[in-house]
């Protein structure tokens, strides 16, 4: 690094132990509303963190505080061990890719990529070669002379990535840059982000509402809702053991069953006692209190009415709708035994057609391990 403009030192000596980013009880208020409350996390060097949440969950606010575009009303941000609350954004060692990319329209692609080098006072003799190298890294060799509007959407994305990374920042922030892309380009760019991030080993925070993107890209995932962090962990953990019914729902759980908690743990719905699993002690239902149970559609097995599973574990139900999606078929079911509750199930190996027509009687079953139990008061609109 020839950069001298950064206020945050990046010495190698004691560096390895210090995390790249630390958020300590961050809070941000707009008027009387707290957009972000008591957010704390720690991100090690070289890791890829995705902050996942719906709009209004506070994830963009969190990113703005880390970038320095806004000041926290409570708490502190530490970058590489140094508190940066008073450091303006242009002095932070951060590269950023924006939602609408925000390329400078009056500069060429190469001009855009050279801009941070000029601003951060790199040796002018070094700049052209470095720009070339990063054009190559994002596979835009030979397109440096074009203006942003002369490039395709994917190429503009690549320019934005190169501009954010060309000065080798300690931290890369991605503010939903893939949100507006069509599915194919999005998947291509996701892989591209991962490749470049691994190649450079840059610590990254990605903000998105796309749960698939979070799982594909990240070493760690934070799920947010209503200005609060609900869960932090590895993608597999968050997927397998959601700590909160909202997390389960946001990660694509199709069915939420309501009932009363019993010891075991289990949930009682009508006459039936369904054994389950509480993934997080903090959100587990207490026996006798209302509970919700999350059940993934793809964990529900469907049998013909006659060929039922082990006795006492299956439920008779009626198919109300089928959705043929080619590689899988989604079933909407009604279970009379559980008080006419609606259930979703996925047949992952349909063999090219929907086996069961609407109106058909079938039997469904699942493993107790797949029935995730939560305190019902965590689920909005959960009055029994």
């Amino acid at each position: 690094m020839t950069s001298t403009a950064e206020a945050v030192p990046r010495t190698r000596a004691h560096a390895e132990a210090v995390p790249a980013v630390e958020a300590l009880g961050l809070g941000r208020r707009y008027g009387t509303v707290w957009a972000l409350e008591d957010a704390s996390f720690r991100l090690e060097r070289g890791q890829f963190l995705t902050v996942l949440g719906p709009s209004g969950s506070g994830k963009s606010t969190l990113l703005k505080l880390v970038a320095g575009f806004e000041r926290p009303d409570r708490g502190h941000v530490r970058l590489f061990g140094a508190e940066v609350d008073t450091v303006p954004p242009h002095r932070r060692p951060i590269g950023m890719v924006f939602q609408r990319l925000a390329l400078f329209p009056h500069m060429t692609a190469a001009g855009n990529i050279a801009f941070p080098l000029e601003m951060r006072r790199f040796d002018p003799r070094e700049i052209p070669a470095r720009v070339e190298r990063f054009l190559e890294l994002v596979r835009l060799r030979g397109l440096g002379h074009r203006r942003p509007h002369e490039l395709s959407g994917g190429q503009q994305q690549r320019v934005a990535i190169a501009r954010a990374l060309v000065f080798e920042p300690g931290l890369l922030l991605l503010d939903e840059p893939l949100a507006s892309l069509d599915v194919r380009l999005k998947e291509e760019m996701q892989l591209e982000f991962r490749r470049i991030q691994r190649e450079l080993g840059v610590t990254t925070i990605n903000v998105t509402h796309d749960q698939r993107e979070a799982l594909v890209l990240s070493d760690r995932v934070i799920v947010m809702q209503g200005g609060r962090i609900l869960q932090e962990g590895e993608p597999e953990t968050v997927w397998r053991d959601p700590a909160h019914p909202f997390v389960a729902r946001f990660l694509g759980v199709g069915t939420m069953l309501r009932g009363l908690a019993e010891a075991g743990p289990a949930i009682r719905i009508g006459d039936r006692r369904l054994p389950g699993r509480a993934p997080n002690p903090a959100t587990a239902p207490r026996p006798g209190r209302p509970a919700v149970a999350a059940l993934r559609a793809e964990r529900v097995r469907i049998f013909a009415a006659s060929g039922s599973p082990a006795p006492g574990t299956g439920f008779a139900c009626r198919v109300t709708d089928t959705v043929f999606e080619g590689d899988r078929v989604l079933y909407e079911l009604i279970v009379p035994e559980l008080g006419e509750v609606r259930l979703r199930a996925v047949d992952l190996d349909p063999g090219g057609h929907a086996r069961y027509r609407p109106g058909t009687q079938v039997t469904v079953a699942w493993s107790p391990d797949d029935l995730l139990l939560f305190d019902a008061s965590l689920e909005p609109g959960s009055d029994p």
Partner: protein
Amino acid sequence: MALSPGRSGLGAGPSPAPYRLSWRILDALEAVAARWPARAEGAIRWLLLLPALLVVGLLVFGLLVMGDASLRVMDFRTYRLSEQHSLANYVRLWGWGAFHATLWRSLGATLLVTLLCLVLAFPYARALTRTSSARLRRLLLVGLFLPFFVGQVVRAYGWLVILGQQGLVNQVLGLLGLGPYRLLFAYETVLFGLVQYMLPFAVLMLAPALAAIPEEIERAAASCGASPVRALLRIVLPMARPGLVAAALVVATLTLTDFAMPAILGGGTNDFLANLVHDQFFRTSNAGLGSAIALVLTFLGTTVAGLLLALAGPGALGVRGAR
């Protein structure tokens, strides 16, 4: 409101979804439009342009008449323009010191007023487009449009009242034991009046260009390591160029050809070219010489506008075909 169920359609009675009168009118219009020959549409587009072309065309006609008059010399014995064409009027202007002084005064004022207006309008337009407070934005907008309710002549007389020997400023200064100062009939006063008059125009032309620069762009500049000042110089100003050129164009052409401010605030001591034209036509009754000055003025205005547009390059004023 359009959604109010009160005005139901003709004879619709108490039916649950009354067919509104406005819908019937639209239906009728659509029925007419459906029968309209498709080929007429292109012609109509040009036909609608005709009134504007006529008005501008008449102006060109007037210019031609003046061009002809400028080549004839006034005979003060008969008060008629000579039959023969000559460049005598222009030759006279070339050798006339007062004309040169006025010319340079006009051009100098144009340059100064334009620069001052751009410098002052930029922060105003930026505050207008960037503030998150709706109340402040409304206040700035009112402040922007209020001057338009007061005509230029009225405003100039207002300044007379404020800046005169017995005016408000001198009275206040008198209370402090200062003055009185002679504030009127000076070049600076004329410039001041012009800046005050042109500022809203500059803001109006500048604001859309600044509003078109997304806030994200400035954040991107910061994330690239640009301080606010460097972001302004390298990113915001270049992107605002169409607006800056448009504002400069309007202010420069209006200032160059201004009549009222130098006439009233200058009181004849600081005339611009337009005042000279006026004097030749209506005081000296020399239509020939007046026309010559008017043509020089028109030529200068066109040159200034042309230079500014050339400076802006393609896409000036944001008028550009779809990409």
